[in-house]
């Protein structure tokens, strides 16, 4: 056997998962070929690099993070978790049946109908029509997002936020609704999702400022930490100042304080 043929078998040989015939073939080749044989030797020698143990402080840090997380969750209304249990597969049906969903689908069907009609009638400017139709559909989608963000159930609002991420560009109304969600939504999960969605539009000055301003108002350590990460990522000139202001908040979670301190050291 040649080295190229062995190359195909070697990974399985190293894991001991070859049949006996193929294993014998590989071993016969290894007897003759110094390079291939050395590969196996190096592979075996890698076992000399034993597992290292993380420092005991690692577990303590994890505990603090977990406590911070649980503190954040316990401030959520109970209805949220109940809603989430009902969510998932049922959501789709729920959606189609809800008045809002019905309106949305009707609008979408109408739009498709108009488009097909125009297309069949052989309009010369069908590219323009297509563009107009797409923009109309985008508007409908964004209206749906707006409506979903105002729903009672956290899972609907969460879904609204995730819908908003499907469009690369959002109109100012949706962006400002998302900023409102980031600031005032009672659910930590929804606020975190809103932050994720908004950070995609961080280049727009209003969104940028809105996100950074919310740093002082957030109560949940998880959202605070996600915001600290963004401050660090964006490296604004006043980033360090904002983090310092955050650190001055009394009763700030120790993990958040530590993270802000760490981020400031990276910014300086």
């Amino acid at each position, binding site marked *: 056997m040649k080295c190229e043929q062995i190359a195909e078998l070697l990974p399985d040989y190293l894991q001991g998962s070859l049949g006996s015939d193929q294993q014998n073939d590989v071993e016969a080749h290894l007897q003759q070929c110094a390079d291939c044989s050395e590969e196996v030797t*190096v592979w075996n020698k890698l076992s000399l*690099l034993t597992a290292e*143990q993380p420092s005991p402080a690692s577990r303590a840090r994890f505990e603090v993070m977990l406590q911070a997380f649980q503190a954040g969750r316990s401030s959520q209304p109970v209805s949220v978790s109940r809603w989430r249990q009902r969510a998932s597969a049922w959501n789709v049906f729920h959606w189609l049946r809800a008045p809002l969903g019905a309106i949305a689908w009707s609008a979408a069907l109408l739009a498709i109908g108009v488009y097909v009609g125009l297309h069949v009638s052989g309009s010369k400017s069908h590219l323009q029509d297509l563009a107009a139709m797409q923009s109309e559909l985008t508007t409908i989608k964004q209206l749906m997002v707006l409506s979903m963000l105002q729903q009672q159930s956290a899972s609907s609002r969460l879904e609204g936020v995730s819908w908003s991420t499907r469009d690369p560009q959002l109109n100012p109304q949706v962006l400002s609704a998302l900023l409102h969600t980031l600031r005032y939504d009672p659910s930590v999960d929804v606020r975190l999702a809103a932050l994720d969605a908004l950070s995609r539009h961080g280049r727009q000055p209003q969104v940028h400022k809105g996100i950074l301003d919310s740093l002082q108002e957030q109560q949940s350590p998880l959202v605070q930490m996600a915001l600290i990460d963004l401050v660090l990522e964006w490296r604004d000139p006043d980033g360090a100042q904002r983090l310092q202001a955050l650190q001055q908040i009394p009763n700030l979670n120790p993990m958040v304080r530590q993270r802000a301190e760490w981020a400031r050291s990276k910014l300086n």
Partner: protein
Amino acid sequence: MLQVRNGAGEMLGVLFDRYQTPLFNFYSKLTGDRALSEDLVQEVFLRILKYRQSYRPGTPFRAWVYQIARNARIDHFRKFPPQSTLEPETLSAVVPADSAQAHEEVELLQRALQQLPEEKREILILCRFQELKYEEIASLLGCELNTAKTRIHRALQELRKVFHQLAGDTVLKRAEAVAAENSFPPRRSS
């Protein structure tokens, strides 16, 4: 994991105990930096909490964790690009061996591993130290099983070459040192 997904944060403690050492070793062998590796492990568990709803029950949890771990590292280096290439001297010392020769081999292996391109180092670490199955590695890297095996083999080929070269250099240096010692015997203070 299902309990974590449904909000029982305490269960995350069990997952932490199970995964913190493998993840720490994944990062430390990849980066050679203990402090950074500990930070990244914390980041992984924070992300597990944040994104727990994205875990689909019934899918392998280990693959999901390593997906998060890879992304956490990629995001970290995107935010903070490494200032310079890693010096092997900054590696933490692993001294499991009781003989000088084995100790030297460990050092050479570590240096050889650090000299590999990152993607080759990563795939070797995943299959040799994290003991991920080839199928899991293929799905993690988003490639076919055969492609994953080929990549593993190429990584091993390169590791052999680098190791061979480093070992050759060491032997040469030692021979030079012996020659120098023979020609100029050093004074020993009593």
